[in-house]
């Protein structure tokens, strides 16, 4: 069966026999985007978090058939070194990653949060950012999330001034 969807702005059509294959494996093995990680395969750790139509989704538990006609954003499409997403910029400023394996999932979850809640409180962060980081970077992450909120609002102000 063929499934068509956009990933990071580009259209893709994949042929796949098992339409229940998790989106994670399609993104990693067929589209070769390895930034989205496999951690548990049970939607428990959040390492595979990406966006489907702007919403955070744990892709190890998302059958590829559901993505037909939708837009997927992965860590590779969120921003790049020349034009980082505010969450990535904040992560750099606060020097968050240690081993780095869980970080794309956290960054994607945070980007989704800021879209819904531009200035998250500590409680919003505790409720929404529930991925697992074994190195224990939570302390810096919290600072980075707040910094990302500032950066996002600065960006918005700049854009408002431009227009």
């Amino acid at each position, binding site marked *: 069966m063929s499934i068509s969807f956009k990933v990071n702005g580009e259209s893709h059509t994949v042929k796949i*026999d*098992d339409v229940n*294959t*998790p989106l994670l*494996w399609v993104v990693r*093995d067929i589209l*070769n985007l*390895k*930034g*989205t*990680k*496999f*951690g*548990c*395969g*049970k939607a*428990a*750790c959040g*390492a595979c978090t990406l966006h489907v139509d702007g919403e955070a989704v744990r892709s190890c538990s998302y059958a590829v058939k559901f993505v037909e006609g939708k837009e997927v954003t*992965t*860590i*590779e499409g969120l*921003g*790049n*070194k020349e034009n*980082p997403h505010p969450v*990535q910029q904040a*992560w*750099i400023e606060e*020097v*968050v*990653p*240690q*081993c*780095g*394996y*869980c*970080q*794309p999932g956290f*960054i994607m979850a945070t980007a989704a949060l800021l879209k819904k809640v531009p200035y998250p409180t*500590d409680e919003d*962060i*505790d*409720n929404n*950012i*529930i*991925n*697992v*980081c*074994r*190195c*224990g*970077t*939570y*302390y*810096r*992450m*919290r600072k980075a999330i707040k910094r990302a909120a500032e950066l996002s609002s600065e960006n918005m102000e700049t854009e408002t001034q431009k227009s």
Partner: protein
Amino acid sequence: MVEKKKISRRKFLVRGGLGTAGVLAVGAYIFRNPIRRSILNMVNTMEMSYMGETKNPMVWFEILKNNTILLHSPKVEMGQGTFTSLAQMAADELEVPFDRVEVVHAATATGNIDGMSTGGSTSVSGLWQPLRELAATMREMIKVQAAVKLGVDIGSITVKEGMVSADGRSMTYAEVAEGVTEWPEVDVPKLKPVSSYKFVGKPIPRIDLEDKVFGTPMFGMDASAPNMLYGAVARPTKIGATFVSADTSKAAEMPGVVAVVEESDFVGVVAETYQQAENAKNAISIEWDAPNNLTTADIESMMTVGNGKSTIIQKEGDAIEENDDRVEVLEFRSPIGAHAQIEPNGVLASVEGDKVTITISTQVIGITRTEVAQRLGLDEENVNVIPTYLGGGFGRRLHTPHAVQAAVMSKAVGKPVKYFFTRKEEFQHDMFRPPTHHIVKGRLDPEGSLQSLEHHFVSGDVGNNSVLIPNFVPPILGADIGSIRGGFVQYTGVPNHRAVYWHVQLPFATSWWRSLGLLANTFAIESFMDHMAHKAGKNAMDFRMACIADDEMGKRLKATIMAAVEKAGYTEEVTNERAMGLAASVDAGTPCAQVAEVSIEDNEIVVHRVTVALDPGIAVNPDQVRAQCEGCVIMGMSAAMHEQMFVEEGELRPIIYGPYEMAFMKHAPKEIDVVLLQGIDRPGPVGEPPLGPIGAAVGNAVFRLTGKRLTKMPLRLP
């Protein structure tokens, strides 16, 4: 103990290659009987040294045509920021800008691998001397060669920022190296004073920072190859189960299955996709001989002081006598702990004829190569192990025999095979932190000074039965060098003190878990010290100070305790329904003190703020030392307050995050203050020592708040 190390001047390799300016500066680093020395060092709670290959010259540096220096790291980057610190050390001695140094994992084909492992918090401290000497030697070699090329006397050569200058002319290092095939031998120069370093000691952002934020670095799980297939290996769910027979007929017919691989010690399948391989594996019907239906209670009863073999590991003065009613006794327990690192153990193996390539997240590169070579009947030179970034190490990857299984499967199908553990397999086949039981005894004199202190404790294997420790070692040492970490009484100012270690063999594998015995041992000793301070009616800090000997380590320990107390504003009063707890430990030569500030909300312990004082000696990268302190506090809180593996009807459970409770964002303290001291003039271990005090610091704070002494990890209010 520290022997002057020398670079062999006889052996330098020269190699050209694409993108390389045509030179490699390499050296062999000579050591004396490194295994024995380091084990003894560990027994003395000293740090381990770098244990490099002793025989052959190795590639350390390449100079690329764009004047970038490529450092082939013998240590893997597990998250502790090692690559950054190594680059700082190299850049300073090489006289190149920091951003001109790139660090890559050395593959076994290039030779520069650590003889043992990445672990024990030794990467930066162990390479401190050798790496700087190698870098400085290479700088001198470049100067000599530049003098030849420029036709000047070496005395007129100056180097700065990757450039060589003399008589108003200058060349890049790459230009100096271009075309050179014979390099001069030079003496190892005197190293620069640490105070003159531009990069060492500065909080430089990690060199892998941006990559990790944009999702580009390669972990073992990300390895792929053309025509790659997926493998899966059936594993039992029960402890101690042994293979009896397998019916693979159904699996062989499953969609996508390329081969069923039946060996004497495992049954695997190879299929086109991950999911197909997993489906086929689940369709294999296996009979296991499962010998027991153990429970957590069975394990606890085995793991009780008095069982197994004992060794006195520390002894001063007299033992506490039985039936002395002046003696205080408390018992403590810690549970089985899982590594729970987020990247599962995984490997890509490619066997082509008699050549094997293994791409893997591992802490034991050399041992993995040896195991694969032996199983396939090949010379080690034919097996290239390419290490990657680790999605968490924590000791979980100090044995990675799944590389062997992947290699066998790859050989069977003639294509590259990727294989990794499911999360259930990861939890049930972890090499766990062993559970422990502790009896701590002490006696005060009439003035309230501690006269006697004894730590009796029992643990399962940590170092014993590990591939890192040769079989002949444990009988000689008499104690498991991992279990006893933190088990020594650090209060050697107490006139009568001793530590007695008991070893019990568990029916499942236990092994290295970040900081080894330190977390549980410190929890027991430091909770007891708090108890005794309270009994003596003394302030927890003053009480400890009086018990610490006035030797070098004692002075450093006192300084960290005082620094933590001062920074935290430590008080034994309950303020705004919050209380503080103090604890300290010495691990591998690095003292650490912590103060935790807690409250109780909905009968749960909430940790608001943790203050850490650490004396790691020279902090090569102070920001990353802080990051290690923060990470250790949170991982230690997770282990001390949340985590626990159970044994139910012979199975280790749970098998997934969630049921395996851990610290999440909401549990992490909102404030972590780190104070760094420098009590020695070299870098000491950093990646594990800050994990020691946190369990006791939290427990002691709960005692101040509630009057209840928590004696069991994970810490829960009754």
